[in-house]
């Protein structure tokens, strides 16, 4: 069901890990839905993303989109990073099955959340960036979905 690129990034995810004292960290997703992504950014004084790492709880597509998203933003400046949309991630992976498109959205959101964190910490404003939705962690309860 997955493309070769997705399988490659799933099997050999790039940039897994944490960055200590990261410039920005964003966690998005919802354990209830089965996907949580956390992105760490190391941004230098020229607003260039020097390094980027991720940790993801989720399906194959969630891991692969996280991995691809970190690859895409690394080395870019924050304005360019804002242009790494879910579409860009999907294209770079040669596509995703329809039920998995939300994973690419999550990857985009995770980057934005990390950038937001960076912007808040450094008290700057990044054009087009909005406050990320609240992160949801393990243990949170919700109603059962309709099936």
């Amino acid at each position, binding site marked *: 069901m997955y493309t070769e690129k997705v399988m490659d990034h799933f*099997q050999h*995810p790039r940039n897994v890990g944490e960055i200590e004292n990261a410039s920005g960290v964003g966690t998005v997703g919802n354990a*209830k839905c*089965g996907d949580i992504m956390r992105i760490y950014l190391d941004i230098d004084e020229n607003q260039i993303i020097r390094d980027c790492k991720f*940790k993801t*709880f989720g399906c194959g597509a969630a*891991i692969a989109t996280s991995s691809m998203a970190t690859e895409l933003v690394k080395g870019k400046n924050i304005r360019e990073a804002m242009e790494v949309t879910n579409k860009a991630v999907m294209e770079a992976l040669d596509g995703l099955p329809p039920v998995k498109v939300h994973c690419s959205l999550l990857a985009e959101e995770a980057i934005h959340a990390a950038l937001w964190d960076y912007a808040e910490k450094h008290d700057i404003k990044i054009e087009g960036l909005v406050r990320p939705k609240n992160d949801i*962690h*393990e243990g949170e309860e919700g109603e059962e979905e309709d099936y």
Partner: protein
Amino acid sequence: MSRLIYLDNAATTKTAPEVVDAMLPYFTEHFGNPSSIYSFAAANKEVIAKQRETIADALGAKANEIYFTAGGSESDNWALKATAEAYAAKGNHIITSKIEHHAILHTCQYLETRGFEVTYLDVDEDGVVKLEDLKAAIRPTTILISIMYANNEIGTIQPIREIGEIAKEHGILFHTDAVQAFGQVPIDVDACHIDMLSASGHKLNGPKGIGFLYIRTGVKIRSFVHGGAQERKRRAGTENVPGIVGLGTAVDRAVRTMKERTVKERELRDYLIKRISEEIPYCRLNGHPTDRLPNNVNFSFRFVEGESMLIRLDLLGICASSGSACTSGSLDPSHVLLAIGLPHEIAHGSLRMTLNEEITKEDIDYVTDNLKEIVALIRSMSPLYEDFMKKQAK
């Protein structure tokens, strides 16, 4: 991929070669329509009657109480919808459980849109229906209790005899979805007061697309598929002769091999459970520890998402499932795991492995060794695990 370890026998099974052999003549040689008058087709009528007897014998039933269908889902739909219709004058209340297969649950939801009321019983943390709850749920308008014999995800076997007795005491019909149990545990419809029972061929090394509904003599039940006079006018459609022969042969085989097969499966199941429990931290066995299908193992691993686990196992030639196959593709965690009280994110990290007689101890060791690594790897990537370990460190 050289090695294939098929641990998804609850999703479907390999059709046994002897079953295929039994079916083959009915495609190109004895292909006649059993309803036909000429002698060329008479043998087909007889062979169907023979399968009906084999199946009835396996249940302690009578041959004319077995009605062939296209599978478990049709049997479940038939049992519920046609009973609801036939007994509507008596009442409009049906009792089932929260852990039934979707073929029951979605049919119940459909019946709710048609004016029926359905009680979905809770289960305990092992997935067992609580008999007190069942008794309390009974109303004067209750026409049907439908509780599965054994669960397809967590393997828990229900106290069917006790449920049957409660149903009988109250004069309520009792249907059981035995799609997973039939062929794995001995079933006696009389001892358990079962009025209707659903089963499906492909779950017991028979072919896909064939199943049956047992209907006790005396149960008023309408047709679900209307048309020709097949199946004593209760289920229309030209008989699937090869399918029926395949099903009968598979049932015969399942009964014949049950004891030896399940002893072996139970042993390996318990070995697998033991190794995982002891060697992988933060896991939980789902389903009843002992009252479970001989071939079912179901674990949840905290901080792990199911699909990643499945794909990594697949890359090693191991076929397993997370939730039930029918609902994969869906993003919702299994309703069964939620019903036994698992939080959503833990339900997402469940793994079902269902054995067959071909699985060896060596296979189990290969699976466990790899699973350990996979779980560790996935956890190393999990932000939930990171947070948890940091909290633990404090």
